[in-house]
Structure formats: structure tokens, C-alpha cells
């Protein structure tokens, strides 16, 4: 019999069981909606803010042995709003009229930077087994429902109570007070709001103060749920909460609560009934194992793809945006032939010296890091394609890289396929998955594209890697099985120098491909679409084929790089290399430095592989965590310099160098260099010019 006799009681129990986690989702979803409504920022760093307050509370309460009230006071009442006010004053006040994607990039940077900065300043380390405490005395003591079916702890009751109370209070604030109206006005158009006499700076500070206070409160309330305090766990739970918030189009507080509770209860119902049903129906078994952990991400992805209404609720344009100065053009403007020669010679000299040092002098440790830097540069080229050319933020590049790694491993382990062939097959698999993924999501605009890819990354993380044919499941694939390096053409790539040469060759081929794409029809068409999709379509450009191509190519490059990383490390090491949180840092790094050039990918790879040891440890004797802080905070420059700080700096220094060379040799010509190499951007100045080019290309096709 499919349905048990006491099904009513089981449903009741499942509902009670699912309500506490649902309340946690609801709490975070509320905070997310609150921040979005009051600041217009898709604040992925909300989880990081919650984590900092939870960690501060733990530090004060457990390590410093402060009384509960004072620990709560410093972590929630003081620290949480202070972080919000600081972020508003230093960063977000200047981004109020920036595009939603720029704000998202900044928020991703902060997601990486804030926890690391707190841990460094407060000396906080997540120690396994140090279970966080709640703010209530005897928080773990339980209460049974009137029928004695399921026990709820005090902490869980508090979460539910706070979520419902906050929903009512915040709802009232938006509905009945002028401050709620002013906050919404400032989000929509700060200038129009000021014309109506609203002090938008003050309103914006207040909004950030309140939403950050709420982040802190949520953090200390949900902390007892975790065994150990770690920032990625807070990030994960926040992505689940985004699914709940998306149910309310990111703007409805009641629907965020309903969505959170609904998710919690649905997961609980599945956990209760699926095992029972799958005893009778064997086809349900895979769903039983995987539907539960993946449900929030499936829901999130489904909402993004299937609900057109949600896409319209973001990016409402400021009617007074014309007051802004025109956006800066690409920093790399035309430069003289003479300067090009100078920079080329300098580049060759530097590369020569580095190569000599690496191959002649470097020890095994440095060799490993340099090889890793080259491989990461290859992976980062995938971000160059999808973000630099197509203008979309993908947060699942690490998953594509992992596919390459797993492919190498599976093919070598099962069928003794040579690892390099495995790497190519891995790249092809990643490309195929990329193309399939692109089809439903390519119509999504900026922020939604990023969130859909994030949902996919978490789906991959929570479901796919468990399959025996992907991540190894219960087999030993994830637990230290080695993959041997190749031995080809009489060259043994177990030798680190040979392997480094191999990865350099792969990188050069990939770069060549990327440059060809940028300068070909695909690149130009992508530029046109980036400038104005409507205008591009009106002259006959179809976005589907070119976007699918770009995403598939990007996935393939990531897959290839991921497989090389696996071959280098002789292990997939999924959690260390490819987890979604690790992937966030990749995006931050590339986008901050320069997403539009191969040189940017190289610099990002070098920063990833070498910055920690070469600069932080050797020069400044600092912890490696500072790299998360530095690059994470540097991402806040994205709105001002979407071309990347490297490009911006390069443009400025080229200008000065050219002036210097002029003084030195006033007779020489200053004609632009037409045959610019990769490290030199095209000579068109700014997006608009590039878009015109792209549009022409597309139109004449």
C-alpha cells in the first residue's frame, strides 16, 4: 500500500519538522528582500554580514565569556549596523545609479571580503566542534505541540517568532510610514526623490542600518543550527533563502516568509514520504536521494526560467539617469606605435626573466604555484569570454571546471583513457552542458543570469557530485585516488618542468582562440548585444546562437582548465578547488582586474597562484586571507571602472608614458597602432564605438 494508515499524523509531523528550517529560510529571505527593497542592491553579502555578527557573538560570549546581553549588544546592536553604515557610506552611496549588475559584482566581492576581514581583525577561526550558542537561555530545551507529535526547541521558536514579527513590523513600515515610501523612492530614483525634498543620503544610510541590523539578528538567531561557524554555510543558506525571496518577486515580505516556510515544509514532506514511496516504486529512488537537497536550487532555477514576471521587477531605469556623466570609455585608448614597441620589448624582457627564473632557479613549491597560476589563467579565460565579451556574470564556472576534472578522473579510472584525451573530452562535456544550460537562461538579464548560474552551481554541488558517474558518490574517487600525469611523445609529464611547458602551450592555444573569437563575428555580435539588445535585434542579430556559442566556449575552456588542475594536483579535490564559494572568488578576481583581455586573465591567474606567497607572505608577512579582503574590496571599483582596474591603470600609465616619450623624441609620429597584440585593446574608444562596429558586422551578415 502506497499510503500509510497514519498518514495524517505523518503530514502533521512533517509540517512541524519543516517549520523551523523554513523559519530560518524565511528570516534570511526577509532580510534579503528588505535590503533589496530599501537599497536596490541584490545583496549576496547579506549572508556574510549575518556570519560576522554570529561569529562576533560567539567570540564575545564563549571566548571572552561576556554576559549574553553584552555579547548580543556588541554583535547585533553595534557591529551589524556599523558594517551596514560603513558599506553604504564608502561604497553603495556612490553606486545608487549604477546598473544592477555592477552592484551585484560589488556584493559578490563583499561576500568574499567581509568574512575574511572580520576573521583577520578579530582573530576568529572556525574550530570544528565549537557549536555556536543561541541568544536564548537554554535555547536547546524543547516544547512539544499539544498532540505531543514533534518537539521544537526554544531557538527554533524564537526564529519563527522573529520572522513573523519582523514581517509584520517591516510590512507596516513600508505600508504606513513615510520612511518606507522614501526608501523605495530612493531606490527607484535618488534624484527624483531629492527633487521631492527627500534627503536620499540619510534615507539610504537608514535603510542600510536597518537591513544590516536585521542581518546581524538573523545571524545570531540561526547560528545554533550549525555545528561550526563558517562563512560558506551562511552563503549556502542565503542562496536557499533567495529561492524563498524569489517566490515574492524579491519585493514581497509576506511572500518571502511564505516561501521560506513553504520550502522548509516541502523538504520535510519529501524527506518523510519519498523513502516510503520509493520502497514500492523503484524509479523514485534517485529522486528520493537528490530532490531534497536540491529542491531550493531547482525552485530558484525554475522561477528564474519559467516566470517572466520576475525579470521585470529589477533594473527599473532612473528617469533622471541623463544627469550622470557619460560612462567612461575603455581606458586603453589608441596609443602610439612607438609606445607599443616599448611595451612589447618590456613584456618580452619580463617574461624572459620570469621564465629563466622559473625553469632554472625555482624550487618545487614555486614550480607548483607557477604551474597553478598558468592553469588558473586558462580557467579565467572562460570568464573573459562570458563576462568580458558577453557581458554576463556567470557564477558556475567552477562547476564547469569541476566537470573537466571529474571527466579526466572517471575516464582514466574506468577505461584507462589517457588523461590528455580525457581533458579534451571533459572540455567537450562541459561545453555541451554549458550549451544546454544557456538555452533556458540566455534571455535572462544581468542579475538573473548570475542567479540562475549560481542556482546551477549549487545544484551541481548538492546533487551531481554525489553520482558515482560524476563525482564518485560513495567510491573513493573524492578521497585521494590519484590520477597519473601523461607520458606522451617520449616526454614524461611527471617532470614538473615538462608539465609547466604543457600547460603554457595549452594556455597559448586557448588565448589564441579567445582573441580570434573576440575579433570575429561572435565577438562583435556579442558587443552589439551588450550595447543594446533591442537595437541589435532590430537590425537582424539573433542573440540565441551567439550567446549559446559564447557560453559553451566559456564552459569548454573552464572544463579544460579544470582538467589540467586535476592532472597537476593528481586529484580532483572538489571542495578545495571547485566549490561554488571558491568560484565566487574567481569571478571577483577576474572582473576586478580586467575581464576584457587575455592579459587580465593572466594577471588574475598570477594573483591567484602567486600573490599569496610572493607578496603577502614574503614581502608583508601577512596571512593569505588578505587576498580575499584586498580583491573583494577592490571589486567595489567595478562600477567606476567596468573595464577593470588593470585596464584603467594601464590606460593612465600609457598616457603618461606616451607623453614622456614625446618629450624625449618630439619628432616621432603619434599614429595609432593598428596591429595591436593581445595585451593591447582595440583602438576603438568606449563601448559605444565598439557596439557600432559590432552592429555593423551583425547587420551585414
Amino acid at each position, binding site marked *: 500500500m502506497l499510503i500509510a494508515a497514519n498518514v495524517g499524523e505523518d503530514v502533521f509531523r512533517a509540517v512541524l519538522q519543516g517549520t523551523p528550517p523554513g523559519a530560518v529560510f524565511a528570516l534570511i529571505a526577509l532580510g534579503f528582500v528588505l535590503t533589496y527593497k530599501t537599497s536596490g542592491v541584490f545583496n549576496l553579502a547579506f549572508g556574510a554580514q549575518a556570519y560576522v555578527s554570529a561569529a562576533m557573538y560567539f567570540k564575545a560570549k564563549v571566548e571572552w565569556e561576556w554576559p549574553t546581553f553584552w555579547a548580543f549588544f556588541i554583535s547585533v546592536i553595534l557591529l551589524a549596523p556599523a558594517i551596514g553604515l560603513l558599506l553604504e557610506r564608502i561604497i553603495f552611496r556612490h553606486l545608487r545609479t549604477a546598473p544592477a549588475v555592477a552592484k551585484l559584482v560589488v556584493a559578490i566581492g563583499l561576500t568574499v571580503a567581509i568574512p575574511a576581514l572580520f576573521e583577520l581583525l578579530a582573530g576568529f577561526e572556525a574550530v570544528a566542534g565549537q557549536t555556536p550558542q543561541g541568544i536564548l537561555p537554554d535555547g536547546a530545551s524543547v516544547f512539544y505541540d499539544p498532540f505531543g507529535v514533534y518537539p521544537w526547541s526554544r531557538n527554533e521558536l524564537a526564529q519563527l517568532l522573529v520572522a513573523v514579527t519582523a514581517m509584520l513590523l517591516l510590512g507596516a513600515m513600508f505600508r*504606513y*510610514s*513615510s520612511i518606507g*515610501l*522614501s526608501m*523605495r*523612492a530612493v531606490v*527607484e*530614483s535618488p*534624484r*527624483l*526623490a*531629492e*527633487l*521631492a*525634498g*527627500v*534627503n*536620499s*543620503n540619510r534615507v539610504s544610510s537608514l535603510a542600510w542600518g536597518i537591513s544590516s541590523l536585521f542581518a546581524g539578528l538573523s545571524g545570531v538567531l540561526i547560528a545554533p543550527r550549525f555545528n561550526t561557524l563558517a562563512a560558506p554555510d551562511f552563503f549556502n543558506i542565503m542562496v536557499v533563502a533567495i529561492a524563498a525571496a524569489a517566490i515574492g518577486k524579491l519585493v514581497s515580505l509576506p511572500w518571502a516568509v511564505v516561501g521560506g516556510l513553504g520550502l522548509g515544509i516541502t523538504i520535510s514532506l519529501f524527506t518523510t514520504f519519498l523513502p516510503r514511496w520509493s520502497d514500492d516504486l523503484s524509479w523514485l529512488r534517485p529522486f528520493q536521494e537528490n530532490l531534497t537537497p536540491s529542491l531550493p536550487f531547482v525552485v530558484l532555477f525554475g522561477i528564474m526560467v519559467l516566470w517572466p514576471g520576475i525579470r521585470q521587477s529589477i533594473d*527599473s531605469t532612473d*528617469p*533622471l539617469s541623463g*544627469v*550622470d*556623466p*557619460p560612462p567612461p570609455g575603455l581606458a586603453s585608448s589608441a596609443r602610439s606605435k612607438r609606445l607599443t614597441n616599448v611595451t612589447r620589448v618590456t613584456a618580452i624582457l619580463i617574461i624572459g626573466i620570469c621564465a629563466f627564473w622559473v625553469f632554472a632557479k625555482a624550487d618545487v613549491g614555486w614550480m607548483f604555484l607557477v604551474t597553478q597560476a598558468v592553469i588558473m589563467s586558462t580557467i579565467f579565460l572562460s570568464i573573459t569570454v562570458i563576462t568580458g565579451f558577453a557581458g554576463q556574470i556567470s557564477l558556475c564556472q567552477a562547476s564547469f571546471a569541476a566537470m573537466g576534472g571529474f571527466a579526466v578522473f572517471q575516464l582514466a579510472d574506468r577505461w584507462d583513457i589517457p588523461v590528455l584525451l580525457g581533458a579534451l573530452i571533459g572540455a567537450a562535456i562541459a561545453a555541451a552542458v554549458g550549451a544546454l544550460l544557456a538555452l533556458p537562461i540566455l534571455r535572462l538579464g544581468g542579475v538573473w543570469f548570475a542567479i540562475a548560474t549560481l542556482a546551477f552551481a549549487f545544484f551541481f554541488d548538492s546533487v551531481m557530485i554525489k553520482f558515482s558517474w560524476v563525482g564518485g558518490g560513495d567510491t573513493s574517487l573524492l578521497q585521494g585516488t590519484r590520477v597519473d600525469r601523461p607520458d606522451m611523445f617520449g616526454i614524461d609529464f611527471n617532470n614538473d618542468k615538462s608539465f609547466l611547458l604543457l600547460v603554457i602551450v595549452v594556455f597559448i592555444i586557448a588565448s589564441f582562440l579567445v582573441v580570434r573569437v573576440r575579433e570575429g563575428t561572435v565577438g562583435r555580435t556579442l558587443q552589439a548585444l551588450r550595447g543594446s539588445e533591442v537595437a541589435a535585434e532590430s537590425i537582424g542579430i539573433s542573440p540565441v546562437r551567439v550567446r549559446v556559442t559564447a557560453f559553451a566556449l566559456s564552459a569548454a575552456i573552464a572544463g579544460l582548465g579544470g582538467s589540467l588542475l586535476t592532472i597537476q594536483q593528481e586529484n580532483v579535490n572538489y571542495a578545495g578547488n571547485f566549490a561554488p564559494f571558491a568560484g565566487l572568488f574567481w569571478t571577483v578576481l577576474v572582473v576586478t582586474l580586467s575581464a576584457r583581455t587575455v592579459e587580465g586573465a593572466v594577471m588574475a591567474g598570477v594573483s591567484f597562484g602567486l600573490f599569496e606567497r610572493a607578496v603577502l607572505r614574503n614581502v608583508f608577512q601577512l596571512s593569505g586571507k588578505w587576498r580575499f579582503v584586498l580583491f573583494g574590496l577592490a571589486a567595489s571599483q567595478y562600477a567606476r571602472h567596468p573595464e577593470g582596474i588593470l585596464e584603467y591603470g594601464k590606460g593612465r600609465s600609457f598616457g603618461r608614458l606616451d607623453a614622456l616619450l614625446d618629450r624625449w623624441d618630439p619628432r616621432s609620429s603619434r599614429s595609432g597602432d593598428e596591429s595591436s597584440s593581445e595585451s593591447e585593446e582595440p583602438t576603438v574608444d568606449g563601448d559605444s564605438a565598439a557596439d557600432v562596429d559590432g552592429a555593423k558586422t551583425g547587420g551585414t551578415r
Partner: protein
Amino acid sequence: MSHEPILELTGVTAGYGPFRALFDVSLSVPEGGAVALLGANGAGKTTVARVASGLVKPLEGSVDIAGREVTGKPTYHFARSGIVHAPEGRSVFSTFTVEENLALPFGRTFSRKGVPAALERAYEIFPQLGNRRKQIAGTLSGGEQRMLCLARALVESPKLLIADELSLGLAPIIVDQVYDLLEKIREAGTAVLVVEQHVGHALDLCDHVILLTHGEISWEGPSDEARHVVASTIFGSPGTE
């Protein structure tokens, strides 16, 4: 008119980023007066309006409201000093209801018990808006959005109303109504600075005309002398549209 100027711009140079749109512009609007700012496309009219309402900060020169210098002050300071700007285009909060748009300038508790009397006054002037109080502003027609923009400016009982391209996109009959309304506002003592390409209406309403060409004041004088100058400057000179 012997009144103190409610707005005075002295030697204002302004622009956007690296671009300059105004060069050494000086003008004044007397209390209760009506000034028309005319010029071809790209002459800098809208920038003058933006400088006058604090949206654009001048790079050089000064702005005074009723004898007090306000150069560089935040935009809301201008609004609170009685300078209200109805910007060009559909400048409404498109996700707000009509009523929320009108209530925003009051900045006080917006209770359901009764909307402020000023809102009722706005609905009297614009009955179409009164019928659509709960409608989302973004779903109004273009003309209705212009009306809402103007209504939002008027609910505050300003000392100076800056109306930028009010007639743009409106049906001629509505334009007539809007200018009738401006006439009434003027008679009630509110000063008006009209930025227009629709010359006829502007000249009928205003008693002083300022003509802008390429970011500079090319002519200034009483409106009855202005007609032939305006015609030759805007429509006759080479390089204008």
C-alpha cells in the same frame, strides 16, 4: 517687477563629466515672475533647469535662492527651499501608485485615514489622476504621467516651479489645459521658469524671455520683443534643428 529674485544664477558654467553644456550663464527669476528659457536642441536649456534645482552642480558661478547662496548644496535643500522642478520626460516613480507619487513630497505619516488636503487639490486640478489613485504610475499613458509629474510639483505649493518641456508628448488640447493651469499658478503668486521648444505658449505665459545658444545666453528681453528674435535664432540660424 520690483521683487527680489527668487532664483539667481551668476556666471554659471556646468556640464556632465568632461563635457561642458553651459558657459557663464547669468539669469534671475523675480518672485512671482514668469521667465521662458528658449533655445534649439542641445542649447543647454535642460541643464539650466537642472542647475536651478540643484540636480547639476555648477563648476563655476553661484546659485542663490531668495538672496541666499545655495551653490553646491544637495538637491533636496533646493526642494525644501521652495524650488520645485518638473523634469522633462516621464519623470514619475513608475513602481509607485499615483497616490504614493503625490504623497512623497510631504515626508510625513501617510495614514489611510485621510490623504492630505493638498492631494485632494491635485485631484481637483487633474480629475483623471483622481480616478486612478491606486494605479501604478508606470502603467499610466504618457500624457497622464506628465500630468502626474506636474501634479507632484504642485502639491507642494512651491515658490518657483521649473517646468521642463511640459508640452513634449502631450496632445495639443492637453497642452492648452496645462498652460491654462500654469497661468493660474502664476496668478496665485508662484514664480515660473518655463523651459520650452513650444515657443507660442511660452511667450504668451511669460513676461521675460532668455534665449540660449550653444550653452550661452544669446538674447534676453521682454517677451513681446522676443518673437522675431526667437524665430530667427531657433529656426533661422545655421546648425540648429
